[in-house]
């Protein structure tokens, strides 16, 4: 056989063999494993902070803020999961992915939550407390992974626990509050100390759960990806990142698969569908107006946040701006600023949009202050060092001082006032005075309580469904006159004018009793007994509407 040339390069050309990654490992690649002492010191900081978080959120948990419609909806859906084995108490229409209230249902099932409280929403708020505690712990971890010192991490958790904006929104039963721990977990796992592949895969899974809990968290995707990209070493990046991406897509596709298995992926007559749900959220849902327009809903929403904690909002915007110059805070600062900028688009701005911004703000403010403090201390020139120290110390002291002053009043209100009383009184009045087969139009916040008080499930109607759910419309062929009572709350007052049957019912009703004042007022209205002639003549909703229109003419 002829001489054979080997296909590999000539011996002399062999390059140096081992290509050891290690010298220039990216951030977070392999810091030493924390020792027992360090862990103990962290616990000494963290445990009191968690106790503080729990106390501030737990004291007067049910008193403030007053229960509102969304809270009731998510709680009722969790209740439906455990009680009826359905995804919602009405036909599930893919408004949000169901994982949020499925988790809540898991908690209430495990702890028998609904049987422990008079008001079902309280069980939901208890779960929010759990979520906040988990989120606070994860926020500590994230701060530490981002190279913040223990005092700075403690400051982050303290802001997260004490800002009135945080306390009010953390108490309310929002899907966002359930998604936040998953989001924070994703960022913690995206900064793994050792097992990068497992960390990234876990981060992707956690982030998938966050998105399936509240779809708006998808906005964080580019920033989580960025965080992973900069942390991944070139030698393993080509495996690590595709695996993480695949895990995220797989988790997300469970929602699509579920819709497909229920034959609800694409629109079809007489069925809800994922397509319609997404279309509604992205296109059809009425926008909140232009944020700069003082009469817009978006402006009002931001006003709610601003009144609760203007200090944190200003501080966080400033901190995020400066954090763009701090390497380890950069992705989170960019995420914060991008989400803020996103509010200026004309679409729908949900009130709880602020929820994922709170932990970021809590993290960026002390993180940035500390980073610049560190720079001042490391500065070579004594003059600059003194000046920098003074400046940073002044900013920090002023911040603490302002916080003390501006947080006191709203925190006091959150910790002591009973704003939910009108709701409870209205519920009690109904339970006492209404017949169990009466048909009630109510705020969803009391739906579960009334059903549990013995009212027929079909007879207690969430006001939002009166005009929108075909099966509810079908159960009231005579329109407004098929209802006996309407309980009017603030969220319902805001909807009025857009819901024909509901508007008619209110127009034909008179106030029996009202509790509370101002925006917290809850009124019970009794719908007028219909003239039998009109009733027999009214064959359907359309006729009823016509009759209403004519009778409304003075």
């Amino acid at each position, binding site marked *: 056989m002829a001489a054979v040339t080997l296909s*590999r390069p000539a011996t002399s050309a062999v390059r140096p063999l081992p290509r*050891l990654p290690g010298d220039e490992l990216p951030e977070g690649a392999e810091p030493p494993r924390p020792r027992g002492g360090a862990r103990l010191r962290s616990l000494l900081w963290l445990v009191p902070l968690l106790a503080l978080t729990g106390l501030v959120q737990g004291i007067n948990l049910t008193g403030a803020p007053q229960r509102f419609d969304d809270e009731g909806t998510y709680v009722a859906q969790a209740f439906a999961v455990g009680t009826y084995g359905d995804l919602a108490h009405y036909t599930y229409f893919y408004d949000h992915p169901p994982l949020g209230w499925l988790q809540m249902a898991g908690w209430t099932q495990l702890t028998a939550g609904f049987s422990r409280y008079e008001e079902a929403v309280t069980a939901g708020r208890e779960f929010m407390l759990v979520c906040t505690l988990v989120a606070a712990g994860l926020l500590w971890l994230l701060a530490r992974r981002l190279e913040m010192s223990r005092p700075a991490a403690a400051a982050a958790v303290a802001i997260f626990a004490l800002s009135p904006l945080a306390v009010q929104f953390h108490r309310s039963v929002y899907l966002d509050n359930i998604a936040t721990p998953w989001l924070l977990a994703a960022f913690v796992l995206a900064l793994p100390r050792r097992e990068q592949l497992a960390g990234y895969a876990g981060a992707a899974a956690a982030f998938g759960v966050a998105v399936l809990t509240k779809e708006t968290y998808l906005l964080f995707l580019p920033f989580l990806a960025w965080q992973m990209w900069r942390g991944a070493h070139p030698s*393993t990046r*080509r495996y690590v990142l595709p695996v993480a991406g695949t895990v995220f897509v797989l988790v997300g596709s469970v929602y699509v698969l579920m819709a497909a*298995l229920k034959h609800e992926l694409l629109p079809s007559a007489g069925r809800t569908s994922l397509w319609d749900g997404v279309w509604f959220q992205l296109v059809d849902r009425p926008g909140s107006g232009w944020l700069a327009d003082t009469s817009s809903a978006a402006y009002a929403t931001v006003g709610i946040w601003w009144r609760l904690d203007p200090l944190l909002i200003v501080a966080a915007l400033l901190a995020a701006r400066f954090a763009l110059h701090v390497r380890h805070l950069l992705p989170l600062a960019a995420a914060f600023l991008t989400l803020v900028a996103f509010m200026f688009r004309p679409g729908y701005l949900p009130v709880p949009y602020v929820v994922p911004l709170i932990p970021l703000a809590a993290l960026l403010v002390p993180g940035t202050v500390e980073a610049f403090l560190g720079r001042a201390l490391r500065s070579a020139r004594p003059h600059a060092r003194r000046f920098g120290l003074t400046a940073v110390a002044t900013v920090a002291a002023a911040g603490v001082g302002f916080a003390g002053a501006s947080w006191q009043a709203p925190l006091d209100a959150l910790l002591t006032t009973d704003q939910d009383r009108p709701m409870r009184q209205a519920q009690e009045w109904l339970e006492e005075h209404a017949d169990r087969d009466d048909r009630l139009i109510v705020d969803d916040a009391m739906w579960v309580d009334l059903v549990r008080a013995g009212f027929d499930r079909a007879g207690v109607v969430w006001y939002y469904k009166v005009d929108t759910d075909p099966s509810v419309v079908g159960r009231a062929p005579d329109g407004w006159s098929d209802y006996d009572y309407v309980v009017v709350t603030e969220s319902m007052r805001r909807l009025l004018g857009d819901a024909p049957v509901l508007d008619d019912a209110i127009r034909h009703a008179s106030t029996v009793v009202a509790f509370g004042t101002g925006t917290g007022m809850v009124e019970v209205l009794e719908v007028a007994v219909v003239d039998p002639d009109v009733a027999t003549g009214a064959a359907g909703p359309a006729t009823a509407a016509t009759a209403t229109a004519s009778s409304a003419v003075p």
Partner: protein
Amino acid sequence: MSVNDSRSHERADRARRSAPRRAPRLLTCLLGTAGLVLLSPSVARAAVEPAARVSESGLDAWAVAGLTFLVLVSLFLTAVAVTTVAWMLHAWRSPQSLAATGFSGRHRLPERTFSLLVPARHEEGVLGDTLDALAALQHPRYEVIAIVGHDDPGTDAVARAAAARHPSRVRVVVDDSVPKNKPKALNRALQECRGDVVGVFDAEDDVHPQLLRLIDNRFTETGADVVQGGVQLMNMRTSWWSLRNCMEYYFWFRSRLHFHAQARFIPLGGNTVFIRTALIRDAGGWDAECLAEDCEIGVRLSTNGARVVVAYDPEVATREETPGSLKSLYKQRTRWNQGFLQVLRKGEWRRLPTFRQRLMARYLLTMPFLQAATGVMIPISVLLMLTAKVPTPIALLTFLPLAPTVVSLVVEVAGLGDFGRVYGMRIRMRDYARLLLGSFPYQVFLAAAAIRSVVRELRGDGSWEKTEHSNVHRSLPVVAQLRPQLQTANAVSLGEREAV
């Protein structure tokens, strides 16, 4: 002569192998296909009734049993697929773990003497080059022992010619056992070894000149008893399955074998494996009756507490070619699987010190059984999916095994890109397409081999089926670097073999 030809399987003997025995991703692939079928809405409509209907009609005992079966199968398949993909990714867990799989860069003086064994049977076409290359390794103290059969004058002549060219390096040992197989040949040569360490190579291996020095370093640095080097199939464009075969080797030696070394239960590869001579002599050499003697010695040494280290660098991995035809790959897989079953039956692994190791052993060695059983289970569960009214949560659960399967496909795509990069080949879109499209048929193929091995073992048929090779992984001078002509090279080489 022609009776003893390699085509006569019952008499056939040694073979080279070094062995990615892949866990049954076939399971998940099959299920995945079932999943894809169900994903198409029209089928799904017919197949899965809404949960409400089920609760209305009530579930009878058969339905409950069916659903339970479905759930258990799904969970089982998921567990298998998850372990498989986790082991597949073991080396890339972190930059540090990847660095730890390679050779260290430190320069050390050689400390050991080596005896390199090269069993050859009817391989006169390739053996001469291999011996020349082995004689030129950069190491001061080693010997090469070519082992030829007493009934194989062609190979014998080539080996003796090489010994004449390299009198200080190459020796020839004649194996006169009947019937012949690789472990017998190795045991015969073991008696003649003078080195501190025994290394095994196959007759067509393309060995890197620096390999021995690096292996020597590795022994010094780790204090290991056994060092397994990397082996890589190179002819990825020869046929539709050769690409998948190459990738199997890539993941096995690049990643998974390191996991097994760390878990202290390792089925060794058939070549580029180095064992302290005293240790293998104490252990009584290779098991002459086992069809997977490399796996067997790995398990036996693991059980005796030997420290096994795996070292991989693409540059110095020993290069090989895939079997020449699908049929011979089929026989090779059957033999490996059956070898695993034999090791399982032999039960040496029961003496492993920790429960974890024994569990690992049982899991790994049972793989052929699991593969075969799954082949039966899959159609049943698909049938159930299509006929039973499955509630949505259970229907979702049956898709669970699809998740790790998709991940492993993505990892394979990433791995193919990496493979092309480290071995300097341009990977084209059609290679990726072939990788993905070949996945399912290849798994079916592996399942068939698994079932055949179980049948053969149950029948007590333990004969050797030799794997045939052409010389595709080397470029002949005429066609050097001309990849499109590999097929021609293949034909030429085969022609030569026939002629001899």
